[in-house]
Structures are given as C-alpha cells and as structure tokens.
C-alpha cells in the first residue's frame, strides 16, 4: 500500500503532474482526518474533566474502591438467593427487612399457592411493557399511513403528523409519567402512558419509512380499478409492510421491557422499583435474586423475539436505536 515516494522519478511529465496532484489530495485528506480526530480528542478531554468535576466521587479517587460496595453484597450462603427468589423463610431471619422474604408473597386461591414477590413484580413490568407496546403499536399503525409521503396525503397534514411523532419520540418519558402521576399517584398506569407515547413516536417513524419503501405497483393496480384510499392502503400497502411492521414491533417489545424496568425504578412500580430499593439498602440476597431474574427474563424475551423475527423477515438486521 506504500506510495511511490520518489515522486517524479522515471515518470513522464504528464504522469508526474497526476502523481503530484494525487499526493496533494492524499495529504489534504489525511490532514482533515487528523484535524477531526484531534478535535474529537480535545472535546473528549474537556467532557471527561467536566464529568469528573460534576461527580460527587472523583474518578481517580474512587477507582480503587469502585467495587468496595460488593463487600456488603455477600449473601450469607448461596441458598439465600434461592430463598429470596422464591420467598422461602430464611434461617438468618432477625426481624429486619433484609430477611423478610415471605412478606411479599402474592397468594392465589386462598393460602395454598402463591406467586413469589419478584416473579409478581416481573409480571407487572412485563405487562407494562407488553401493554404499552400494543397500545403504542396500534396508534403507530394508524398514524404511519398519514405520515408517509407516497400515499397522497395532504402535505400540511403529513407535516403535522411527522412533527407530532417526533415530539412523542423526543418528549422525556419521565415527564410524561410525572404528569400523570401528579393526577393519579405514581404507579404502573403512569408508566404505561409514558412508554406508550414514546412507542407511538418511535414505531411510527420506523413504520412510515417502511411504507415509503413499499412497492407502489399494487397501489397503481388498485387505483386503476377505482379503489378508494382505505382500500388501497388495506390491500396494496398493508400486506407488503406487515412482516417488517411485526419485526419492528417485536424489536420494540425488547426495548420496552428494558424501558419499563427503568421507569419502574423512578416510581412506575414493578421490578425496577424493588431492585432500586434492595440495592440501596444493601440487601444482598434480594439484589442477586432480582438481577438473576431480570437477566434471565431479558435473555428469554430477546431470544424469543429474535427467533420470531428471523422466521418473519429472514436475517435482515433490524437493530436500530430507539
């Protein structure tokens, strides 16, 4: 890959000129790349210094002790984690919250059968995620045809719909949840509202991009036989875009499971909230039980949805960010 460094030697005058110009272009390009990298490095250094100053613990001071808090997170014995997960009584029980595993049981059918607390909270989180993906998906489906540019929707309406979707996507979820929480009190309903609104925005954008990439020949055919707008959308566009829609929908489900754990931690209820409490109070066994449960659930959901998506649209990578 090395260039001929002895520029001009043994070359004709014309070739020499071309070679000289080539080298000039190369140098300019390299200079620009170097400047860009240097600029990025300077910004990075300032960003790091700023972040370090703004943090209550400084990076270099904290680094040797970063995982010291793990010392507080040694369970009394490994089976404590199992007991915490399945709400079994602990032999170490001393009346404190640390060992009150049985308290959270959710009894079904009298007193014989119960759902362990963390499984129940996981169910709450999953229901938040699924319900808001469904609600968001339904609205995104309705809105995307209005926002797409190839279906002859009036330009002002399309513009308005796109801005609305952008606003729904960018509006901070935590404020949406907080607005409803002020009226209703904190809890899953506020979380569902927040995640749903964000889902409408995020899915709506992906959906209308799929619609815009659809083949318009079936639409032409239906138009030729006098179909109205709804019939054209229903029979020409929907069958084409449905596999991609479902694929994006499943991807959103994965993302929303994570989103609803986070929004749970700031008051939306579910597994996020109990996790924040247990890690804040140094309840080792409970924390590990939740981490394991959450990890397994997320892996299971990812695998299931990945398998479904591969069946639907093959190996096409649909891994775009939120």
């Amino acid at each position, binding site marked *: *890959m090395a260039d001929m460094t002895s520029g001009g030697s043994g070359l004709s005058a014309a070739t020499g000129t071309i070679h000289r110009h080539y080298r000039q272009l190369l140098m300019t390009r390299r200079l620009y790349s170097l400047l860009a990298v240097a600029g*990025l490095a300077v910004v*990075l250094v300032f*960003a*790091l210094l*700023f*972040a370090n100053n*703004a*943090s*209550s*613990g400084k*990076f270099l001071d*904290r680094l040797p002790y*970063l995982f010291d*808090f793990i010392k507080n997170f040694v369970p009394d014995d490994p089976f404590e984690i199992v007991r915490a997960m399945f709400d079994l009584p602990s032999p170490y029980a001393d009346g404190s919250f640390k060992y009150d595993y049985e308290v959270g049981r959710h009894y079904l059918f009298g007193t014989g059968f119960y759902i362990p607390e963390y499984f129940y909270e996981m169910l709450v989180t999953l*229901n938040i995620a*699924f*319900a808001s993906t*469904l*609600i968001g998906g*339904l609205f995104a489906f309705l809105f995307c045809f209005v926002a797409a540019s190839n279906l002859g929707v009036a330009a002002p309406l399309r513009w308005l719909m796109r801005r609305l979707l*952008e*606003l729904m*996507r*960018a*509006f*901070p*979820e*935590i*404020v949406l949840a*907080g*607005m409803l929480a*002020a*009226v*209703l*009190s904190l*809890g*899953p*309903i506020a979380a*569902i509202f927040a995640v749903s609104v964000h889902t409408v925005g995020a899915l709506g954008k992906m959906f209308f991009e799929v619609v815009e990439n659809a083949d318009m020949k079936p639409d032409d055919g239906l138009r030729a036989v006098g179909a109205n707008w709804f019939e054209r959308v229903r029979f020409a566009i929907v069958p084409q875009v449905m596999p991609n829609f479902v694929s994006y929908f499943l991807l959103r489900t994965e993302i929303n499971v*994570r989103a609803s*754990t*986070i929004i749970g*931690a*700031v008051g939306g209820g579910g597994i*996020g909230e109990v*996790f*924040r409490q247990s*890690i*804040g109070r140094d309840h080792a066994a409970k924390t590990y039980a939740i*981490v394991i449960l*959450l*990890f397994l659930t*997320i*892996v299971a959901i990812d695998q299931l949805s990945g398998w479904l998506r591969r069946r639907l649209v093959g190996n096409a*990578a649909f*891994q*775009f*960010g*939120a």
Partner: protein
Amino acid sequence: MSAIALTAADRTRLRKMHPELFAPGLFKRWGGLMLLAGALAYLVYCWSFFEVGPKLAEGKWERASVYMADWISWEAQPRYRFQPDGTLEIEHQRFSPLGENPDPDWMTALPGGREEVTFGDQSNRIEIATTGVIAVLGGVPYDIAFADEAAILPADAPAAMSEKNGRVTVDYGFAGSAEIRATQVLVRRRFLGWENFWFDTTSPFWGMGLPELWTSVTTGPQISPDQSNLSLAWNEFLTNSEWQHGDVLNKLLQTIVMAFVGTLFAATLAFPLAFIAARNVTNSRPANWLTKRFFDFTRSVDMLIWALVFTRGFGPGPLAGIAAIFVTDTGTFGKLYSEAIENIDDKQREGVRSVGASAADVNRFGVVPQIAPVVISQTLYFWEANIRGATIIGAVGAGGIGLKLLEAMRTNQDWENVAYMVLLILIVVFIFDNLSAALRSRLIGPTVH
C-alpha cells in the same frame, strides 16, 4: 377489450388448479383477526390487572388543568385583610413574583378606602370594601354582603360564583379567581408567560425591559464596584433563584456529555472486540464464543442495573451515567459490529491477502471499508438514542437533568420549571438528531437511512 366470461367447466378447473387460493387455511383466513382479538383480550386483562378503572376514578382530575396551566403561566396571590378600623391591608405571598413593593396596574385604590382588582378588562373586576364586595362578571355587578362571619351568595348568582363554608368564590376563568370571606379577600390573578424568567426580584436588573437592560450593560452606571454590568447581569441570570439557569444548563450539559462519552468509549472498545468475536476473522472458537457471551452479558444486564451499580461505585454524578452507557452499549455495539463483519463479502479480503498484505492490512483494507457504513450509522443512532435515554437514568442518580426534573415534578409547584427543562431537552434532541443525520449523510452518503 371484451369482458372475460368463465364457463362452469373453467371454474371447476381453476378451483382444482389453485385450491390454496379458493380454500385458504383457517389461520390464513382468520389469523389477523384472531391476533387482533387476542391483543384486545390482553389489553382487557391489563385493564383489570392494573385496576385502571378505579385508579382513573380516584384521580384528582380537577387539578390537572391547574398543573397544565402552570406550564405556561404564573399566578400572583394578593390577600386583602379587613382591619378593625374599616381599612384594607394588602398582603402578598412570600417571595411574591411581583417583587418587594408591587404596584401592578390591575390593582388600584378607589376613593373611600376601597380597592379594585381587574381580571383582564373593566367588565370583569372586583371592588373590595370591608362592608361588602362587588363582583363584576361580564359587566353585570353582583353584591356580596357579609352576615354572621360569612359571605352571602347573591340570589341571582351565575354558575361562575359558588359558596362553601361561608366563603364565596368568583371564578374568572383563566384570568384567575377571588375567594371572599368575612375577614379577607384572597385574589388569584393568573398571567400567561414565565414570570421573572431572566432576573429574580432581588436582582438589580429585575423588571428592566430589553432596551433598558442594553443601556445598563453598555453605558449605564456600574452597579457593583468590582465587576462590569455585563458580567453582573450574566451572573444574576445564572443564579436566578426561581429558574436556576446555571444549574439547569450544567445538568443538561452533563446529560449530553454522558451520552457522548459513553457512546464513544463503547464504540472504541467494541470495535476491536468485534473482530475477535467474528467467526470469519478470528479462527478460534473459544475466542469467538467468549467475546460473544461477554457482549450478551453486558447487553442483557439492564442499563438500570449498571446505572445503580455504578452510582453505588462512583457516587451520584455523570461518571456513573457514562459508565452505565459505556458498559451496556459495548455489548450492543459488539453484537452489531460482529454481525456486520460476519456478513461481509469475502472477496475483498482475498484480494488484499493475495497481494501479500499483513493480517492487519487485510482487516484494514478488506473488512473496514465494508463495515464502515453500518458501524457509523449504528453508532450515530445510538448516540441519538442515548441523549434521550440519559435523561431517565439520571433520575436514579446517574447524573444529568433527570434528577432535577424528578425533583421539580415531585412538589407539584414548579411545573413551569419542568416546562423549561422539557423545552431545553427537546431543543437538544432536535439539534443532535440533525447533527447526527448530517454527519451520517456526509460520512456514508444519503442512501442508507
């Protein structure tokens, strides 16, 4: 063109030839409808699981409109106390947005010791005297008299006037309301806008219009002996006690820094690791497997868990947020990059190898040019997403504007501050969306969306 006419024989023949078209399977015919019915049934189940009905009924919906109005408006609450000698004493709320000695034009003193408050125009006003109050609603005056320590609702009172426990409330809509008691009148006067947005009432620049401010910072007499008026004004702006511009901007910058540094570090670490994880580049099963499981692990442990773990480790602040984004996205980027590498066209590598290039050169010129568009667009997408996402992990203590938003909402008093921060976040998201789109189209061309 003549119409197509089918004979009975043709029909049976077509039916025989394409049975799948004329008698589709049960799932094909009803599958969509079944899925929709299932989804609706699930939503009904969620309705009862989360007790949505009772919760909605319990909600304090009457407050919602006040909270929403607070986003874009503010309220002054002067109180007219009746003194024993028949005069009125005006008392403002503590830290009143009107400043120390307010004399707004909607509060006027009338002859005879009476006071007048107007709500927008002269046909909506209230005249206060210790002996009785006249409320003028839409040009029609109503007399409110006092008896037995209680205010009495006039007989012909419209719906905008109501009485409860001896207190008459006159509702002037958005402009405000007046609560009339036998001992005092409490006026709530609402105005559109954000009060004292630039300078708070204790600042020397408070109440100045733009031209006035301009003269003050350019040619006006120096207010503080040891700094210029411009720097004093900037200082006063940043330390505005109600709006806390300095703190809000600082927290906003923290959020941006978290997303930027976290994403950049994650991409930098994931890029070389992805080459180890890719089957077609690194020919070692254990190395592939180990790197891929590492990616799966960091990706699948939720960002919330990492955020809380690092908040415990570093203490609250943007370092925890950077670390959480870095660790989670290392896994995501690693997975995406290694899949991109595994999907490349092998011919370019063979070509580079066939001229005797070293292993590093084979990857540099045989692999990187092919995966660059995917790597750049994915990294930029996640950068955008992280700017939005960093708000919320901040709320659990990982630095940035999230916690400030949460605190502002918790009191239910500062919705105008929430509106201000939301506006700033939306502006930042908008700027960075466009920046990343511009970078993307500049680096890899406009075709890849």
